[in-house]
C-alpha cells in the first residue's frame, strides 16, 4: 500500500479495496484481508507498526494497525476488534464488499536498521495485531537478524488472537516462540500458564543486553511489568520499542487529536522508545 500520486489525488484520496477473506479471531475480533482494485498500487511499501485509515461512506473513518508484513505482497491484512460504530459496520460487510483505504501513516518499526540485532518481541492481547507484521517480516527475512525471541500472552486460549497461526509459527521454530495464557480454562492448553512476564526465565540466560532490541505491544498494564523485566535484563532504554494508541482523525498531523505535548502520534509515532516515554509527559 502506498499514498498514490496520480493526477488529482490529494492527502485524503482513498483507494477502494475488496475484502478477499475474513475470519473470526476471537469472539469480538476479526481478521480482514484486502486487495486494492487498482492493480498499480504496491502493497509492500510500508513498515511494520504503521497504520492505515479505513473509510466507509455514511459511517466514517477509523484507524487500524496493518497486520500483514511488507514482505508479502498482493494483499493487505488487518485484525479488528469490534468496539464502536465503525467496526460494527465493518463486521456487517461480506467477502467481495469494498472498503476505501488511505495510508500508510505513522512511523513504524524500522526493521532494516535492526539487521544483525537480537530481538525480543513481546505481545499481549491486541498487541498481536501490529506485531504479526513484525513476526512475519522476521520469518521471511530470518537471515537478517541474530537471535529472535517471541513471547506471547493472552487472557485465555479463547482470547488469543491469531491462535492457530501463532501456534503454527511456534512449531515451525523459525522464531523461538514462548506462549502463555493468564488462565487456562480448557485444561488442554499445552504451553505456559501465567502472565507474559512468567516467560522471561526461558530466555534470560541467552539475552545479550546491548545487542538486543525489544519490541512490545499490549495493554497499558503489560507495558509496566514487561519494561521492568527488560530493564532488569539491562536492555538500553532507547532499544525498547513500543507502539501506542491515540485518537486520530486525519493521520497527517492536522486534526490535533493525537497530540502528546508537541508531538503528533500519527507522524512521530505510534512507535516510541522507552526513553521517549520517560522524557515525554503523558505518553503512557
Amino acid at each position: 500500500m502506498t499514498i498514490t500520486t496520480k493526477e488529482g489525488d490529494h492527502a485524503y484520496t482513498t483507494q477502494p479495496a475488496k475484502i478477499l477473506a475474513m475470519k473470526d479471531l476471537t469472539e469480538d475480533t476479526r481478521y480482514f484481508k484486502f486487495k486494492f482494485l487498482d492493480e498499480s498500487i504496491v502493497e509492500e511499501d510500508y513498515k511494520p507498526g504503521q497504520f492505515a485509515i479505513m473509510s466507509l461512506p455514511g459511517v466514517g473513518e477509523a484507524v487500524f494497525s496493518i497486520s500483514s508484513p511488507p514482505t508479502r505482497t498482493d494483499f493487505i491484512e488487518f485484525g479488528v476488534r469490534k468496539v464502536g460504530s465503525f467496526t460494527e459496520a465493518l463486521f456487517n460487510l461480506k467477502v467481495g464488499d469494498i472498503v476505501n483505504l488511505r495510508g500508510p501513516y505513522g512511523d513504524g518499526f524500522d526493521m532494516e536498521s535492526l539487521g544483525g540485532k537480537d530481538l525480543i518481541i513481546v505481545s499481549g492481547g491486541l498487541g498481536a495485531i501490529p506485531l504479526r507484521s513484525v513476526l512475519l517480516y522476521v520469518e521471511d527475512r530470518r537471515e537478517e537478524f541474530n537471535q529472535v525471541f517471541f513471547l506471547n500472552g493472552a487472557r485465555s486460549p479463547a482470547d488469543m488472537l491469531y491462535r492457530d497461526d501463532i501456534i503454527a509459527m511456534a512449531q515451525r521454530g523459525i522464531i523461538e516462540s514462548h506462549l502463555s495464557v493468564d488462565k487456562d480454562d480448557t485444561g488442554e492448553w499445552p504451553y505456559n500458564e501465567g502472565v507474559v512476564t512468567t516467560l522471561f526465565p526461558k530466555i534470560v540466560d541467552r539475552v545479550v543486553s546491548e545487542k538486543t532490541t525489544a519490541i512490545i505491544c499490549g495493554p497499558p498494564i503489560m507495558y509496566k511489568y514487561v519494561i521492568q523485566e527488560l530493564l532488569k535484563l539491562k536492555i538500553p532504554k532507547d532499544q525498547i520499542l513500543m507502539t501506542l494508541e491515540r485518537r486520530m482523525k486525519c493521520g497527517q498531523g492536522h486534526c490535533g487529536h493525537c497530540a502528546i505535548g508537541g508531538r503528533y502520534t500519527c507522524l512521530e509515532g505510534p512507535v516510541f522508545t522507552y526513553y521517549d516515554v520517560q522524557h515525554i509527559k503523558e505518553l503512557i
Partner: protein
Amino acid sequence: MKTYKMSKDRFPEFIELIKTKGQLFGPVKGNGHYSFEKIEKFEDLDFDYQRTVIGPKKFLTPSRYPTLRYDKTGQSDVFVSDEPQIVIGVHPCDIHGINILDRLFLGNIKDPYYEKRRNNLIIIGHSCFPDENCICKSTGTDMVEDGFDLFFTELEKHYLVWVGSDKGLSIAIEAENLLSEEISEEDIQDYVRWQQKRSGMFKSEIPSFKYLADIIHLNYDSKVWDQFGEKCLSCGTCSLVCPTCNCFNVEDRINMNAEDGYRERILDSCTLPYYSMVAGNHDFRPDRTARLKLYYTHKLKEYIGKWGQPSCVGCGRCVTFCPVDINVITVSEALFGEVCENQEVCD
C-alpha cells in the same frame, strides 16, 4: 516591499475596485460585536474595531464544511469554487494567525481543502489601535511583514499602502490612479508618530513572554493547572475564537432520504470532553485540568519547539470571551507567580 500612499477620500473608490475581484468581506458591527461579513457598499465597513469574535480563520478552516459527498453509486470530493474571496480590514495579529495556519496546513503534507481556500483568499490588512485586552506587543505580533496581499496603515491624512504579494501588486497597478508613489519626509514622520502613539497605547502585557516555554515546562505538575481546571467550563469558546486553533473532528451525515450523504469537518477543541477518547471508551484526558494543560502547553510551549514561535498572536480574544477568565494573560501570570513563589528565581 513596494509602498504607496493613498488619500483617505479615495478609499471608497478602492473598495469599489476591489469588489470587482470577488466576494468582499470586512469588519461589520452587529449585536455589540464585530465580525467579518459580506460587504455590499463602502458604508457597511467599520474599521474602528479591535477584534472580530471569529478571526479570518473562518475563511480558511470554517467551523463546519463538507469534504466528501457520496451516494449509492460513488463518492466525490467537495471543494469550494474558484471565486476569490477578499477579506479587508485584517489586523496584524490575525495575519500572523493565518501565517501559523499556513505553516501547519501547507507544510510537508498539504491539506487540499485548506489549500484551495487559501489560494482563493486575498488578504488586505488594516492598521489598528489596541484596547486593554490586546497583548500583541508582548507576543511580538503587533507588526506584520508578510502574509498579506496589501496592508493599509491609516495615518492622519492618508493611508500608507504596503504591497505584500504579486496578487497585491497586480491590484495596486490596477488602482494606479488612486495611489501615489511619492512618499515625502513628512509622510515618514507621520508614520513614525503613528507608531509611537500606538506603541504607547498598550495597557496589558505578558512580561518575559519569550521565556514562557521553560516556565510551562517547569510547572508541569503545578497546582495552578488544577485551579484553572476547577474553574474551566469545558465550553470550547477559547478554541472557537482563537485565530490559530484549528483542531477538527470528522463525521459522516446521511441525508433524510437515506440515499446519499456527506462527510464533514467540524471545528473541535481539546478542552471539550471526549477529545482524546479512543474506541472502547478509554479517555486519555478525562479531566478538565489535563485538557486545559494540553491547550496552553501546545499553544505556548510546544509550538516554540516545533516552529520557533508560540501559536498565540496576542489578539486578546480569549481575554475578551472566556466566561471564567481563563486566558493567556491569567494563565501566564499564574505560572510566573508560581515560579516566583516557589523557586525564587524572579526579581
